[in-house]
């Protein structure tokens, strides 16, 4: 079953309920929402509703987070500089989520919302491979 406009609207309302005063996703509120849903399941489409809700949560999260992947040690000052520049660019507070990703070989990849900034050996090699073909 696919998400109908009604289900999407419901999921959007649920998302609004899961946000705290600052507009960031609150884990407690989200849990609360899921509990209520569990107690009063809709007649049909619970699965789809949950899935849509999860997608919306995820996309909202990515908008408020700066997901930074790196290979090799990242200097704290450099990280802070990166975070500030991203916050300036998006004009909002971003929560940093830093993970190490050896697949990058060396370098950094940052993601905010749908935007990806990539400066890594992996992507450079990928570009090289495409240009050679």
């Amino acid at each position, binding site marked *: 079953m696919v998400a109908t406009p009604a289900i999407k609207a419901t999921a959007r309302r649920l998302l609004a309920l899961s946000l705290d005063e600052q507009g960031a996703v609150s884990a407690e509120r989200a849990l609360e929402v899921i509990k209520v849903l569990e107690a009063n399941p809709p007649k049909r489409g619970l699965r789809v509703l949950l899935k849509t809700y999860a997608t919306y949560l995820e996309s909202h999260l990515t908008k408020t987070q700066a997901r930074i992947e790196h290979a090799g040690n990242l200097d704290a000052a450099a990280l802070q500089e990166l975070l500030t520049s991203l916050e300036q660019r998006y004009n909002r507070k971003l929560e940093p989520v830093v993970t190490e990703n050896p697949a990058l070989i060396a370098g950094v990849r940052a993601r905010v919302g749908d*935007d990806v900034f*990539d*400066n890594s050996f992996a992507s450079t090699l990928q570009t090289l491979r495409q*240009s050679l073909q």
Partner: protein
Amino acid sequence: MSDILEQIKAEIARVSSATQQANVGRITAVADGVAHVSGLSRAMSNEMISFPGDVFGMALNLEEDEVGVVLLGEASHLKEGDEAKTTGKLLSVPVGKELLGRAVDALGRPVDGKGPIAAKENYPVERIAPGILPRKSVDQPIQTGIMAVDAMIPIGRGQRELIIGDRSTGKTTIATDTIISQAAINKKGIAGDDKNFRPVYSIYVAIGQKSANIARTIALLEAHGAMQYTIVVVASAADNPSSQYIAPYAGCAMGEWFMRNGMDALIVYDDLSKHAVAYRQISLILKRPAGREAYPGDVFYLHSRLLERAARMREQDGNGSLTALPIIETQAGDFSAYIPTNVISITDGQIYLETDLFNQGVRPALNVGLSVSRVGSSAQTKAVKQVGGKIKLQLAQYRELAAFAQFGSDLDARTKSTLDRGARIIELFKQPVAAPKPMEVEVALLWAMHNGHFDKIAVKDMIRAAASLEEYFKSTQTALLGKIAEKKVLDDGLEGELKAAVEQWSRTFGAE
């Protein structure tokens, strides 16, 4: 071998470690050549979206939290959760003279196994048609080489003339004959010393056809030396609907390059019924509301924006032109169906082909009553107009009388002469496939018909007589034909020479 290494070295040297920025999304559903992608918040309409495995798609539906992307090419390996990326480029295809002689797919990639195409330019597939200002009215002819069409339904450069008819009534043949005729004219013109000669390049777009048919068409064009002036854009029935949907726009972009660079081009869309069907399929999968015959609401715009791109530019804007010959297949002769009426109203006239006539052996199976050319007469060569002008009227009178003449046997002399003339005109207009006639030969034959030089010949001998006269002109009267081709108008002197020539021929033909 060493230059390969050199190239690789050069590429490596060129690699920069600059930051790459992209807008990404995830596939939430993929089916029937359409992917629904969440994210891609910065995607533009008609932007190329890249998927893993060198697959590209075109963003068609931009919704609040989702983008509908039609996938181009083989995409069976894509699955839910795969990452999609914007490319920042509108869907575009290579254009230019390098494509001539080649068969390419809807994205301009070669499919004829003749190696890569070294095109220097790319044009976006979707482009707004030229406005009112840079346009000029149609005033130069396109010789189809089909006598019936050139005499009665003339086509001008920049015109959009629909070819409509049931299946297997010779629609494609009219289009390919025109391409072959253009090639013959090009060859002669380029070899000649006329500085003002403007060659016409052809683009044949095959949409949703059987691959065997496309191969046959290409072989036909190659056999008649027309391929070197032609680009074939292939989106066969085996290709996915999005390729079939894109193909005419891609072909049009290739044609536009010629037009915008001051050249003349001819584009054949074979056929737009299948294009509409492919678009209907995509629209239904994208869940756009269905309208009449389940076509989406914008199916008129689908064809109007395509055909509007055919134009004749004025001198300040390069003086180029793009002539479009769209083809529409009707079901059981019903040209009042949805898509046919749409396209009829967009085009500047139509060539209507009939199954009955085709089965009677009238080929091309042209219905003279229903076929029109709304703007072509101002582009028609003067000489053809002089001799062909009355033929259409005579043929129409013949058709009207022929219906009555079946009942009565006693006919007055006038009626009888009209009937006799009509029957001979029909025989004269019969023409085999891929045998286009040059303009001057058409003029000579029509002149002979118009002045009653065929009246003494039995109707059953007409085809033979016409062929014999053509042969006679080509073998012994080349000087006269050259004069007609040069002057393009019949004056008293030329008519006198024509008369003498035809009379001499009729003595020999009678004696045979």
